[in-house]
């Protein structure tokens, strides 16, 4: 597994660097029309980072729920470790989504926060999954901790699409701006988007495997300590 992890890290590094190069040197500059003037929007480049981390974050939450459901049916501890590790990574990537979204709102509107549907969805997701970590820390018995948090990871993942739609039925002052709709995606832009998406996914899998191994080692250490009569 260690070899696979290293290989995935290497692939991720190559794809992410390639994505960076594609975003800045190959993908065309977006030009929009505003008050009769043509403006070139350099800050749009953040999307080549923002979209891949957002995708990875959602993927990690879904994978976390799948492993959570697997734990509930099989009751094997490794599924709890995988579920926990995945939700942790989902949260980490979620923080990056909010941070990169924030850079965009800052450069576009000059404010640090806008109640813009996609960012708001992510804010709620972060709160939703914060509850996951509080729940874990509130249970001391290991198997109950695993059982309750696995159930919560499933509940949270079911909530995600509802949050997505609910945000959009609230009348909003701001239009959906963090969107590529209406912008014709040129092939080079699509490539510049897909390459970092794959890179970020590889990075996620590598990190998941690494975290999983550390959790296994942690369990081994606890076990040995107890064997020694700790």
């Amino acid at each position, binding site marked *: 597994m260690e070899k696979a992890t290293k290989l995935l890290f290497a692939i991720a590094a190559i794809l992410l660097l390639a994505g960076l190069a594609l975003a800045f040197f190959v993908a065309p500059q977006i030009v929009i029309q505003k008050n009769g003037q043509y403006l070139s929007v350099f800050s749009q480049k953040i999307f080549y980072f923002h979209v891949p981390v957002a995708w990875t974050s959602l993927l990690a939450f879904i994978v976390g729920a799948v492993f959570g459901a697997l734990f509930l049916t099989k009751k094997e501890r490794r599924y709890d470790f995988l579920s926990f590790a995945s939700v942790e990574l989902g949260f980490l990537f979620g923080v990056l989504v909010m941070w990169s979204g924030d850079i965009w709102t800052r450069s576009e509107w000059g404010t640090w926060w806008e109640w813009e549907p996609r960012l708001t969805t992510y804010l709620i997701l972060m709160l939703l999954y914060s509850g996951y970590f509080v729940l874990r820390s509130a249970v001391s018995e*290991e198997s109950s901790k695993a059982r309750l948090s696995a159930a919560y990871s499933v509940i949270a993942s079911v909530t995600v699409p509802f949050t997505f739609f609910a945000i959009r039925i609230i009348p909003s002052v701001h239009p959906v701006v963090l969107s590529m709709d209406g912008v014709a995606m040129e092939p080079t832009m699509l490539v510049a988007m897909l390459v970092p998406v794959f890179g970020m996914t590889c990075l996620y899998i590598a990190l998941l495997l690494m975290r999983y191994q550390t959790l296994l080692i942690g369990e081994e250490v606890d*076990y040995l300590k107890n064997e020694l009569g700790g």
Partner: protein
Amino acid sequence: MNRATELLEKEKNEKDLNPIPEVEVKKLSKTFGKRKVLNKISFELEKGGFLSLFGPNGAGKTTLIKIIATLIAPTSGEIRVAGMDPTKNSAVIRAKLGLISHSPLLYLDLSAEENLQFYGTMYSVPNLNERIDELLDQVELGHRRYDLVRTYSKGMTQRLAIARALLHKPSILFLDEPHSGLDPHAVDIFESLLDNIRAEHTFIMITHNIERGLALCSKAMILYNGQIVFYQGKEELDIDMFKSIYRQRVKGDS
């Protein structure tokens, strides 16, 4: 340990006389990851037997009870309760089990009758009202049947708790530290009630009370770290050995 194997041998011989033991556990293990909550537990409890279960907190006593009660599935090993597999016949087995705990398991804002009616419905007890009359007479609470449990004394609550546990005529009774929180007088009342029902039930009791636990039991067991460290029948029980193991494992650990 020799004693334990002797006992197992003896159980094997007894098997011909009494074909189906009420509880039969073979190499039962419950693990979570690396941790062994229960590690290859084997024992048998005959019909009408009384097993006293000692051990420090976290030794696996509750887990063992929960597995017998069909609430947790074991990781490996075999278990038969009244000849049935708890992982497959959970509803049938649960209908045969009763629990008397240190907490009364009663709703304080309901009357005695309402409490029994509620649990009776949960157990689908036939002719429930007659059964309730019968039980309330038995525990001498007939005159207080419409009063809220909140207004009961500790002893009365305990009596009602016993009635509650017997409502569905269980064949196996779990006693979960029934002596804790009872004064000596209440213990006397409790044990005389226990005496009345002793013959037709099989008992498994978790307790920290050595004196009472050994007096009541037909078999005594100490669990430590998920393993049986002491297991003897009452007739050949080596009290010094019991006490030294108990001191070493239970007292020394807490």
